[in-house]
């Protein structure tokens, strides 16, 4: 099981704070591609954290069971 958490405009698009995905050993880029397609996130820019750490290299990361993935867009209001 992999948990995904959404923030800001991403949470608005997905209409939820997060969800659980019943996969393990899933490449991160594959998860992101399927979420982008499912929720049409492609116009939004965001950074990705896994287990509370920002991941720079999203292309080569393999998710394991119990990983928590967070999609963090920049906020602009002030």
């Amino acid at each position, binding site marked *: 099981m992999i948990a995904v958490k959404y923030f800001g405009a991403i949470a608005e698009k997905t209409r939820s704070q997060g969800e659980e995905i019943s996969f393990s050993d899933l490449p991160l880029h594959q998860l992101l591609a399927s979420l982008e397609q499912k929720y049409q996130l492609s116009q939004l820019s965001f950074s990705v954290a896994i287990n509370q*750490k920002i991941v720079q290299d999203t292309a080569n990361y393999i998710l394991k069971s119990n990983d928590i993935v967070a999609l963090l867009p920049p906020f*602009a209001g002030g």
Partner: protein
Amino acid sequence: METARYNRQIILPEVGINGQQKLQQAKVLIIGAGGLGAAVLPYLAAAGIGEIGIIDDDRIEVTNLQRQVIYKSSSVGKSKVLEAKEMALGLNPSIKIKAITEKLDSKNAISLFEQYDIMVDATDNLNTKYLINDACCVTNKPFVYGSIYKFEGQVSIFNYENGPTYRCLFPEEANDVRNCNDAGVMGISVGIIGMFQANEVLKMVLGIGELLSGKLLVYNMLNNEQQKFDFSKTDTNTINTVAFENKYTSVESTTIEIGAALALEQINNPEVVFLDVRNSDEYPKITIKNGLQIPLDRLEAALHQLDANASLFVFCQSGIRSEKAVEILINNNFKNAKSIIGGAKALDKILHKGTVSVS
């Protein structure tokens, strides 16, 4: 120092009289006098930060009052920073407040940041956040970031003691993110995030606690969930003066201007002529091998002295006469003329740092 005023914080062992002196010596620039700025300013002023600058060119609108609680209804139409200054000095007359009625841009950012120890990002758009980040990298200063999306807020510290920057967290320059004006916001939300920012400023000055450097705090006002995410420095994102000028002068202004550092990159290029349009008695003297001096009022009569194919980098004392000179040159078919931003003063500063090697 008025110790009675600060008694309740001085009696904290973490602050003490030493800490109070640190606060008094600190210089903090608040960028933006909107919701976040209105939350940060009174607390920094009340705590006794010795010098606070606040920059914003906006005027107070009635739609601001729901969240920018330092302004009065009777002040609608007035300058935000001038009103903010009056409020802060009313709260604490023993500090210095500098109200800057300008918009932060790539031309004023660096000289402004050099005058302060810590910048507070209280802006409402991503372009300015990247500008603040880049100018902080050039001047080697930290900034305390705060930002809101509806009921969520983010807080972090960037470029603190060579730590990670905003670009390490958000390398992509997105500009599709809605701000409070478009997305809506509760006054309390900007208040809470502004408080987190002010708290980080005070901790940084006092040297207490753990700072949010390399950490992004995300706070959700609807469920009170608070999370921290770690991020590290990515080496590819270093920004120096040349990169800064390259990036911003090409975007923001016309191509007839060039930054002083970028111009000096070409100091040894024989195709480039540095044209001084000041009078010969003006200081500082700028000595450049490929330099030429023709005062502005004699320029039109002396155009035959110039090679129409050369790149002409024109400077005067501060950059105003050189703009006129470039206009004259371009009208006379010198297509490669550029005015050096900041003029002789900016050139002199860099030449004296010894960072340019003259062959």
